[in-house]
């Protein structure tokens, strides 16, 4: 009897934490390299704060890495380094815009970079909390409706009088204890979990009931309820909070998860029609939506407009960019938050911008890969939803900055200045890594199978 006769192929689970450490070192190298580069070109020498910056980023990355090593050893090795790289590059760029703003005398609030590093630390703490507290993502399914309610409450929180504040026409902020937060960022995570839990229960009915019409499987009229509710809520966000980006994000997320869980293109068509209807209604009714669209169609009609300046900067950057510290990104309004992609494109050029977009794509790819490998539908849907929220966000903001679609105020994940978004994104990464740990873990947590045990199992036949 030989084991060679019945060679069962096993996928050997590997932890790959060493590879992660290696990639993390490169990511930290790139971030510190950017910081030093900015120092040399804009400050005339390696800045004294380099050590502090390197220690901060390095320590945070190392803590996150150790948490994975001990608490989620089979998690995906690529996601964390990508997140660290984006975060580090973002901080370096914010620092660079700080220098520029000081140089042109717009010093209100400067410097922003230390603030962003503090928020990174808070984000990593939340990341640790997610990894340590949530041992199994399936436990979250018990909180489906609670999280749905929490998500809705967070969404309407900025409308509470006395709590919400209006910044630049959008009321998506709340002010508590002197600090402002964007509760929508956390509402996104809660709602993804809610959508996933809800669709796990309802997907069979949504898939199977219905009839064919013109070669399309259309759902029953009464099953349209949830999609109409999602549509009304996102329209409500648009009307009452004047936030085009979040509204698009929530509706897109729900629609996408509905499509993924039911595999029926009919939902996409219904959702697309609802979206077009909503968008047209918003365009003709609300002044701020109308203005966004005219800005998009003719960005140069306003002298020194945000989009126009951003586009000029990107054009000046060209293929290889001006070089870090040698552009003038500070002339653009919100060069360190909404328009950070255009600041990066100005100094790193198309070459650098493509690399950054690839890093985003890699995070999204790993998220979808996690969903494919995950063994339970709930986990699959959460991973898909989180990856899609990332991709929608990147598409909406980069599309807006580059002039492909109207600019809306969504945060560039991990890069843009803004604490809430950064912290929420670290939580998302934590959740994704937790699910990927479950997905890649060996199915039977038994001792490694030796030749003898296999031979014995075969002999039992």
């Amino acid at each position, binding site marked *: *009897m*030989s*084991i*060679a*006769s*019945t*060679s*069962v*192929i*096993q*996928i*050997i689970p590997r932890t*790959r934490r060493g*590879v992660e450490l*290696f*990639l993390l070192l*490169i*990511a930290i*190298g*790139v971030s510190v*390299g*950017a910081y030093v*580069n900015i120092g*040399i*070109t804009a400050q005339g020498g390696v800045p004294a704060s380099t050590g502090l910056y390197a220690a901060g980023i390095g320590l945070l990355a190392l803590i996150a890495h150790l948490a994975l090593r001990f608490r989620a050893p089979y998690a995906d*090795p*690529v996601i964390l*380094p*990508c997140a660290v*790289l984006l975060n580090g590059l973002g901080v370096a760029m914010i620092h660079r815009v700080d220098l520029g703003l000081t140089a042109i005398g717009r010093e209100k609030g400067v410097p922003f970079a230390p603030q962003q590093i503090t928020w990174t630390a808070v984000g990593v703490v939340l990341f640790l909390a997610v990894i340590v507290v949530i041992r199994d993502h399936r436990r979250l399914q018990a909180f489906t409706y609670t999280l749905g309610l929490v998500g809705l409450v967070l969404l309407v929180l900025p409308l509470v009088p006395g709590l919400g504040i209006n910044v630049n026409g959008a009321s998506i902020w709340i002010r508590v204890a002197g600090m402002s937060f964007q509760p929508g960022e956390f509402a996104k995570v809660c709602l993804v979990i809610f959508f996933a839990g809800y669709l796990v229960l309802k997907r069979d009915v949504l898939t199977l009931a219905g009839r064919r019409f013109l070669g399309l499987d259309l759902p029953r009229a009464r099953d349209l309820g949830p999609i109409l509710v999602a549509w009304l809520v996102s329209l409500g966000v648009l009307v009452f909070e004047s936030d085009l980006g979040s509204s698009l994000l929530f509706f897109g997320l729900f629609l996408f998860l509905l499509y993924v869980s039911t595999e029926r293109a009919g939902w996409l068509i219904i959702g697309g029609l609802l979206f077009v209807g909503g968008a047209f209604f918003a365009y003709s009714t609300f002044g701020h939506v109308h203005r966004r669209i005219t800005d998009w169609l003719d960005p140069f009609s306003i002298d020194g407009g945000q989009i126009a300046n951003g586009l000029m900067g990107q054009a000046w950057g060209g293929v*290889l*960019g*001006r*070089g*870090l510290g*040698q552009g003038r990104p500070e002339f653009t309004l919100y060069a360190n938050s909404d328009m950070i992609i255009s600041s990066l494109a100005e100094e*790193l*050029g198309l*070459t*650098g911008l493509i*690399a*950054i977009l*690839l*890093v985003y794509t*890699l995070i999204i*790819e*790993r998220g979808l*890969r996690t969903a*494919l*490998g995950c*063994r339970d539908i709930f986990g699959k849907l959460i991973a898909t939803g989180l990856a899609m929220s990332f991709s929608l966000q990147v598409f909406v903001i980069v599309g807006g900055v580059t002039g492909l679609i109207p600019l809306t105020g969504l945060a560039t994940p991990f890069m843009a200045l803004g604490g809430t978004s950064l912290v929420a994104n670290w939580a998302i990464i934590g959740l994704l890594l937790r699910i990927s740990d479950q997905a890649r873990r060996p*199915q*039977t947590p038994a001792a490694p199978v030796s*030749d003898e045990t296999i031979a014995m*199992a*075969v002999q*039992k*036949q």
Partner: protein
Amino acid sequence: MSELTLTLIKLGFLALLWMFVLAVLSVIRSDLFGAKVDSRAAAPAVPAATRTPKAPKPVKKRKGLPGSLTIADGPQAGVGATLVEEPIVIGRGSDCQIRLDDDYSSTRHSRLFLSEGQWWVEDLGSTNGTYLDGQRVTRPVPAEIGGSIRIGRTTLNIAK
């Protein structure tokens, strides 16, 4: 600082950034180019690389007989076994040669065995039945190359 130094720093940083992207891509290469485990090609290679190497027995193969059984779809796609002499048990149990991760299969679901110079498929009294090319298997039936066995939600292909 000279123009040349600045240009070199600029290009150096871009190179560093791309190095990260390429390093990540090389780590996930198997995702991009596919690590589909084809049992015919990979069956001898994978165990040799991962377990303690053991000289594989030279196996006499009769012509025209099925040589492998592979799961065709789902998360376990590519998992399978080579058909040599010994019978193969398929099911959810840990002592099965092909272990299915399928809620609709029984612990010891069905069996493939060699008899009278032919491979046969036999149902081991499973709850949901075994289907060979769409026909429910009630008694041992001959398994031919190109046939497909359905167990629960899993389909297995018989190949040369």
